[in-house]
């Protein structure tokens, strides 16, 4: 429960991934890694340097990379496939859907540079649709770690799990908000702040913003429950329904389009719940992004803790009773 949002430790989730991949590679000889000419960017270069015989560059050919990973999985290897989220979920969508997941194969897709906060490369490289694309595939598991620490745990849990998984990582360096002790269980969200006035359900980079907003709200007498919904699919319905019942107002926050992502998943789950709490969604509001520093983008596109504070008050005003 304790979290250290004021911790000076900054690290990107992709950096944590690069490190833990090498650790796991040492322990498990059946891990193979594929990348599509982005080994530095995805940090798979660390694995490549350590285990060159288990690292394969597919060149700039993401579709084939997914297919080769599928084939490797059928022979008992655990392929970990990395490229930018826009290419993993977008360019190779059909291969992920029809070859990997349809065949039920044990392929781990770890996509970096997700969301608008990937920054200066601009909207052609900002994947704001990948959660939607991946979670709509039957049998797919979708994980969005909140920080570097959680990324390491999530990768380990993903390797232990048998089946296809999509892990969504980011480029910016962000604070560590989770703690060493709490276990990572796929599909089991964590409450990072207690509170009964409303619930802020966030994933990925937005968990930090949510915590910061919760701090500000507390100083104004509003106690927000902050839930780190690190697994988008399967969604933790228990924690969600409890939040709905106990706090009566919900705000979701994600660095993704407000269409199809975490906010949509939450709304779908609550659609038939009575009484249904009001739900506000923080996210990219159905527009393409642009080049810029992550912080500037967060501000301009309404993803900052200030936006969360404002939305929290609005959703609270709709709360019954």
């Amino acid at each position, binding site marked *: 429960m304790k979290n250290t949002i004021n911790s000076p430790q900054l690290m990107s989730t992709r950096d944590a991934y690069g490190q833990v991949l090498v650790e796991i590679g040492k322990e498990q000889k059946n891990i193979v890694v594929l990348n599509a000419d982005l080994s530095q960017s995805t940090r798979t270069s660390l694995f490549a340097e350590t285990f060159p015989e288990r690292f394969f560059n*597919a060149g700039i*050919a993401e579709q*084939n990379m997914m297919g080769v*990973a599928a*084939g*490797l999985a*059928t022979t008992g290897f655990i*392929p970990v496939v990395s490229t930018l989220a826009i290419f993993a979920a977008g360019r190779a969508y*059909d291969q992920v859907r029809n070859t990997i997941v349809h065949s039920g194969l044990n392929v781990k897709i770890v996509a970096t540079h997700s969301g608008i906060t990937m920054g200066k490369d601009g909207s052609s490289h900002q994947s704001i649709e990948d959660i939607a694309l991946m979670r709509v595939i039957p049998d797919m598991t979708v994980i969005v770690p909140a920080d570097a620490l959680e990324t390491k745990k999530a990768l380990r849990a993903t390797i232990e799990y048998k089946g296809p998984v999509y892990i969504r990582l980011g480029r910016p360096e962000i604070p560590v908000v989770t703690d060493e002790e709490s276990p990572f269980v796929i599909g089991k969200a964590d409450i990072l702040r207690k509170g009964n006035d409303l619930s802020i359900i966030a994933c990925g980079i937005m968990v930090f913003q949510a915590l910061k907003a919760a701090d500000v709200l507390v100083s104004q007498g509003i106690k927000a429950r902050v839930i780190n919904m690190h697994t988008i699919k399967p969604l933790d319905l228990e924690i969600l329904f409890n939040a709905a019942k106990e706090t009566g107002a919900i705000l979701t926050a994600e660095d993704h389009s407000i269409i199809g992502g975490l906010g949509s998943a939450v709304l779908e789950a609550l659609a038939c719940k009575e009484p249904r709490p009001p739900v506000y969604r923080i996210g990219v509001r159905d527009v393409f992004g642009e080049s810029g520093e992550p912080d500037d983008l967060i501000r301009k596109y309404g993803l900052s803790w200030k936006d969360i504070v404002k939305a929290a008050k609005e959703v609270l005003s709709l709360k019954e009773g």
Partner: protein
Amino acid sequence: MDMAKLIEFRVNLLKERSSLLKHSVELVRGLKEAAIAVGQEIVKMTSNANSGHLGGSLSCVDILVALYFHQLNHNPRNPSWPGRDRFVLSKGHAAPALYGTLALSGCFPREELKTFRDIDSRLQGHPDNKKTPGVEISTGSLGQGLAVAVGMALGFKLAGKNNQVYALVGDGELDEGEIWEAAMFASHHKIVNITVLVDRNHGQNDGRTEEVMSIEPLAAKWASFGWKVFEVDGHNIKNILNVLDRSMENRSKPTVIIAQTVKGKGISFVEGNDDYHAKPLPKELVAQAIAELGKR
């Protein structure tokens, strides 16, 4: 050799394989009979289901039979035996040919072919590895199977195993960029335990391949991607067996066999007729088609 004996041979493959390694007249005759039977099943399956891809299923029957009744090291009574060779039907719409071959080689009951494309059936419109014994990977979205086969071959290479991997691709399917991505990957990463067969029947969905999208010079294309290229008459079983044998000698490259075939092979009014790409025969023509196939 009659059908029953041939099937028995497949079932006892691991014990008896060596006795049939030479391409005896008997073996070739047996395989031809098997190919006829599979062809007839394809007509029945598609006509029963009133849907399915007739032309491109018939064009690859001889190849599939040569693979499953002779070339592949596999055990139809235990389709998931880890030591087996792998076959990927990249042109997944030829599912009827695959199902007919799998059933006749003993992977599942021949009776079950009647259920093709029905509700609750294990035999889906396109191959589904989670439903059908003997199907290695789900296919249907064209252009993806070769990459998977390359990944399988890479897996066996990494594990130091001798399993061979085979894939059948359509000639229209070669329009897909991913095919050439996979071709590049295989030669770059020196993956030699793979054999691709191109079902060169010169037809695709909208018509002749060279009208829809030119793919010639095909042999030169594969060669320039670093593959060793063979060509064969894809309806001459003896030649298919021979080329498969020859292709195994002194492997230093991934290997492709361009098999010249005819869409709708064995039925006079279907052969080369692009109307029957994705259409079954009308009921009244089924008996004649089955009779014609019987005389192949």
